């Protein structure tokens, strides 16, 4: 129904309109919607073209060192991490992504007579720690029909990391002199590698995932004594997505 209606009072009003636009703008809008833009399918979302979210988690070091001399304490030995995940949907069941994360890996060394890493000297408490920046590209295989949700998935990934800092820390009790304890931190020891890389996998449902990472690179550099055994390569734990 198209109507074009004129009569004199409105024409008079039209004359007023020449000076009225600002008043018109003062009308209070009680509701406004723009379906032309509101109804455009989104490109961003858990099962859309792109999705980003934060995540955090903990993985425990699993297994023993590759020889005697580096007994570890479990489950204190492990990695805490927090990161940003970027996921690009490829098909309904597949996606690719890139994780960028901050990870703090610590090996708690059990003090025993067999200890050789990094020295045979016993302490009250001792650890090797690495604060790392990691990048991890992954591919995702999702299971089951779903809407705009993360759903159930299996990720396979490769990762690389660079240690912002690495430390050898120990605590002696009683401490030197009159102190009850002495804390010593050896910064960036030459025997710890700063670069590391490996493979990973995740089995997830929604925001929760079981995480496994396998380190292909060695822990110790070529400057480390030959008697240093390789530390456990597996990290297994859980991850929680923040979304």
């Amino acid at each position, binding site marked *: 129904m*198209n109507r074009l209606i004129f009569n004199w009072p409105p024409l008079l009003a039209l004359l007023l309109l020449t000076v009225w636009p600002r008043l018109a703008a003062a009308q209070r809008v009680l509701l406004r919607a723009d379906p032309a833009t509101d109804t455009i399918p989104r490109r961003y979302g858990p099962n859309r073209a792109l999705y980003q979210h934060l995540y955090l988690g903990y993985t425990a070091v699993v297994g023993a060192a590759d020889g005697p001399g580096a007994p570890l304490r479990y489950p204190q030995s492990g990695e805490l991490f927090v990161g940003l995940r970027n996921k690009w949907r490829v098909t309904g069941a597949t996606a690719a992504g890139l994780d960028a994360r901050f990870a703090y890996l610590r090996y708690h060394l059990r003090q025993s007579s067999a200890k050789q890493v990094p020295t045979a000297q016993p302490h009250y408490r001792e650890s090797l720690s690495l604060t790392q920046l990691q990048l991890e590209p992954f591919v995702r295989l999702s299971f089951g*029909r779903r809407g705009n949700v993360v759903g159930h998935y299996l990720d396979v990934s490769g990762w690389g990391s660079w240690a912002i800092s690495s430390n050898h820390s120990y605590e002696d009790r009683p401490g030197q002199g009159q102190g009850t304890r002495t804390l010593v931190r050896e910064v960036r020891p030459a025997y710890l590698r700063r670069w590391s890389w490996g493979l990973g996998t995740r089995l997830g449902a929604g925001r929760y995932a079981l995480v496994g990472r396998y380190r292909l690179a060695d822990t110790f550099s070529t400057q480390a004594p030959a008697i240093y055994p390789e530390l456990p390569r597996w990290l297994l734990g859980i991850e929680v997505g923040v979304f």
Partner: protein
Amino acid sequence: MRFRKHLTLWLGLLAGLPAAAQSSASITAPAARYWVTFRDKAGQMLQPAAYFDPAAQARRRRQHLPAADSTDFPVRPDYLARVRALTDSVTLVSRWFNAVACRATAAQAARIRLLPGVSSVEVWPERPMLPAVIHRLQRPAAPPAGSPDPLSPDDLVLARRQTAVLGAAGFRQAGQQGQGLRIAVFDVGFRATNTHPAFAHLYRRRAIAATYDFLRRTPDVYRGGSHGTEVLSCLAGQLPDSTFLGLAPGAEFLLARTEQQGSELYAEEEAWLAAAEWADRNGADIINSSLGYTDRRYFPEQMNGRTSLVARAAAMAVRKGMLVVNAAGNDGDDPTWRTVGTPADADSVLTVGGLDPDTFLHLPFSSYGPAAGGRLKPNLSAFGVAITAVPGGFERVEGTSFASPLVAGFAACAWQQQRDLPVMALFARLQQAGQLYPYFDYAHGYGLPRVAAFSAGDGPAVLPNPTFDFVAADSAVSVIIRPEAAVVPAYSLPLQAATEPLADTPTAEIASPPAPLYWQLRDASGFITRYEVLEVSQRAILRVPLQQLPAGGTLRVHFRGYTASFSVL
């Protein structure tokens, strides 16, 4: 060498994980769900008089539908027996879709595909439906066994207004309170419905015709949650002072528990279908479903009325002559969804949005249309804040869950008035009864239905007087409200409100705030590209630059019952 060792370990892990996952899955869920559709119903017959309740037979006669058609015939028992022999369990047999839902392993499913008569075997996704309710505004105190808690004065006012604006007085005067109609309510549970004083009048006159829990397969529906109790109260609940909370206290009810609140069950969608078939057989005229699927399984662009089973089941229910009224959903303020859920997306489902009782405008949480494809949804609106019966008392709740039964009650009264209307004719009349009709937008649909549209009878439609004019200039078009329409009428109290002639007491207008102005821009295909509601504080109300009009499109305006369009020729 070391790398090869690592690689071996890694491949072992990859090979092991899915196996482990499968093994774990096999412990917790030995079989997946499948939907098995058959090719034919050859040789099957049905005695409608024996199978259908007399009310169902009467409904079909009234609507000139066949007493039964092939979709009512039973599934072939030989097909069924073969599937039963191969699967762990058959959880649903659907006559309407000539199909069964069953649990089976992948190997069993593969064997079912090879059975004679099997048309398709699809994996059946397992997700719950969510009630279209948001948060409660207040919690009742410890539920007393006897008398419910008293309501606040504000709540009492709302309790009366939620039906008054729909014309409760007019329907009551005409003796139309849903008598002779059966309304099926599908919900998560009806806890305390059978003991709550609000429903005592229903049990006194045995108006609960049948109940069934489609999850537990028992007639006991008074468990699982009280959302159904709240919804039912917006159809037929009664306050201690005898105020009815809904418009259909005179109807009969079929209560079906099809959903479980707060947990993942496997059977919700098929339970909805089973309940619809049950409601059909038991003579339901109206199905109220204050439930909806959203993003757990679907994308907004899939809200096309064809993708989900519940949407197809709802459409089939309408084909059987039942009016399906569904809540629009409460995702209007969720930017990732925003639109209606399913089955509210089906064309023939009357989708109801929520209105603010104070402003009579769209509530922010009420889901917006359009449905996929630019189709009009919601169809109508009613109060999305309401007083409902809850275990132990009454309380104010929010959600389109409650707008839906309010409109279902309206539909029951309207249908009682014109009992021979085919369901889609009623659907159209209900839309025409919207206070905005013929204007609509994707927030309000056609707005709040008015009883006056039904009480006017079938005489020639009276065109409303124009309330505004378009004034076109070179670069803009303005909307000027006519002086006679710019008067805010005073309201005089009638001597006796209950006896006031219906035509002279447009209840909605009496109870409503000053009328706003609705306007929209539509493109050449009729799709609304932009719409607004303006508070009217001056006669020169709107000025739209012509360049903002879509090519071939129109500017459409509604004010005080009058709708007109302007387009550039």
